C-alpha cells in the first residue's frame, strides 16, 4: 500500500495541531478510505460504518492537541481512535453479530459501492470467512494483511503485545484455511 511520506504527514499534523483545519482536511483525504475500510470490516454495515468513520475524524480533531508524535506515529494513533470508537459503538448498541447473521452481504443497499464490490463472489466469500474468526483475530488479519501494518504498529493500535498478536494471526490463518477448504469442497 502506498504510504504518504511520513515527513509530509508530520507537517500536516503539526499544522493541524495549530488549528489549521485545511491541513486536517488533507489528513482526512488521505486516511478516510483506510479508516472506513477498517470500520466497515468490523461493523459490516454501510450506514454504521459511515457514522463511525465521521465520529473518528471528529474525535481525532478534538484530541489532536494531545497527540504526541514521539510516542507513536499518527497512523497508529488515528487507528487507535477508530478502534476505540468501534468498541464504544458496540458497548452502546450491544450488537453481537452471530455467524448466521454474519456479514450481511445481502443487506447492502442496491447498487451501493459495497454491493457492487461484494457481487464479486470470491470477495463475498472472503468477507464471510472473516466472520468465522473471533473479533480479535479478525482485527489482526485486517490490520496486518489489508492495512499492511507491522506487528509493532498493530501492538500500538491494539495495546496487545507482539507475541500475542503473532499467535492470534497464526490461529486466524489456520482457521481461515479450514473455512476455505470446507467451502471449496
Amino acid at each position: 500500500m502506498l504510504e504518504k511520506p511520513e515527513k509530509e504527514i508530520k507537517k500536516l499534523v503539526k499544522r493541524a495541531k495549530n488549528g489549521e483545519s485545511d491541513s486536517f482536511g488533507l489528513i482526512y483525504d488521505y486516511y478516510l478510505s483506510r479508516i472506513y475500510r477498517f470500520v466497515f470490516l468490523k461493523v459490516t454495515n454501510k450506514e454504521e460504518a459511515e457514522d463511525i468513520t465521521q465520529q473518528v475524524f471528529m474525535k481525532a480533531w478534538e484530541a489532536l492537541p494531545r497527540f504526541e508524535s514521539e510516542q507513536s506515529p499518527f497512523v497508529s494513533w488515528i487507528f487507535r481512535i477508530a478502534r476505540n470508537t468501534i468498541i464504544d459503538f458496540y458497548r452502546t448498541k450491544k450488537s453481537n453479530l452471530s455467524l448466521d447473521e454474519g456479514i450481511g452481504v445481502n443487506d447492502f443497499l442496491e447498487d451501493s459501492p459495497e454491493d457492487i464490490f461484494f457481487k464479486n463472489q470470491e470477495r463475498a466469500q472472503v468477507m464471510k470467512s472473516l466472520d468465522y474468526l473471533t473479533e480479535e483475530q479478525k482485527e489482526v488479519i485486517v490490520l496486518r494483511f489489508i492495512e499492511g501494518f507491522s506487528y509493532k504498529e498493530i501492538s500500538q493500535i491494539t495495546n496487545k503485545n507482539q507475541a500475542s498478536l503473532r499467535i492470534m494471526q497464526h490461529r486466524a490463518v489456520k482457521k481461515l484455511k479450514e473455512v476455505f477448504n470446507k467451502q471449496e469442497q
Partner: protein
Amino acid sequence: MKKSELINKIKDLQALEPSADFKLHARKTIMAYCNTHQFSQTPTFKFSFSPMFLKVGTGVMGIGLVFVLGWYLVLSPVFSPQNPSLNVSNINNEWQLNDISPYLEQIFSDDLAVGEVDAALNQLAFQDTLRQGSGENAIVKEGQLLNLDKQLPALNNHEIDDILKQLSN
C-alpha cells in the same frame, strides 16, 4: 490452500472504498465541525480562590485543629485509660495461638499499641500459611495452572516464530 494464496485473497479487500457521495458529504461535515470546534493550542487553567472562601476555609480548619488536639492531649487520657498490654511475643505455636482467640476481641476493641496488634496478626497469618502449605509450593501450583496461551507471550518473537513454524508443519 497455501498461506500466500489465502493472504492474496484477503488483500483483495483492500479495494473496498467508501462511496464518492459519502467522501464528499463527510468532508464537508468534518470541515464544518473543525471550524466550529477550534481548540486553543495553549490551554489556560486558572485556579483562583476568592478571599471570602479562603477566610472561611482557614477558620474552619483552625477550629477543627483545636478540637483534635484538645481530644488527644487532654480528654483522651482522662476518658480512655491505657489497658494492660497483651504479651504476644511468646506466641510460638498453634495451641498458643488458639489461646489468643479470647484476646482477638480485645485486639479490635481496645486501644493496644500498634506494634502489639501487628505482631499478633502476623502470627495468625503465618499459621494460616503453614496450614495451606509452603509459599514455594503454592507458586509452583499456580505456574502449572497457567495455560499455553499465557506462557507463550513470555517468549521472544523468534522463539514464537519457531514454535508457530513447527505448528504449521
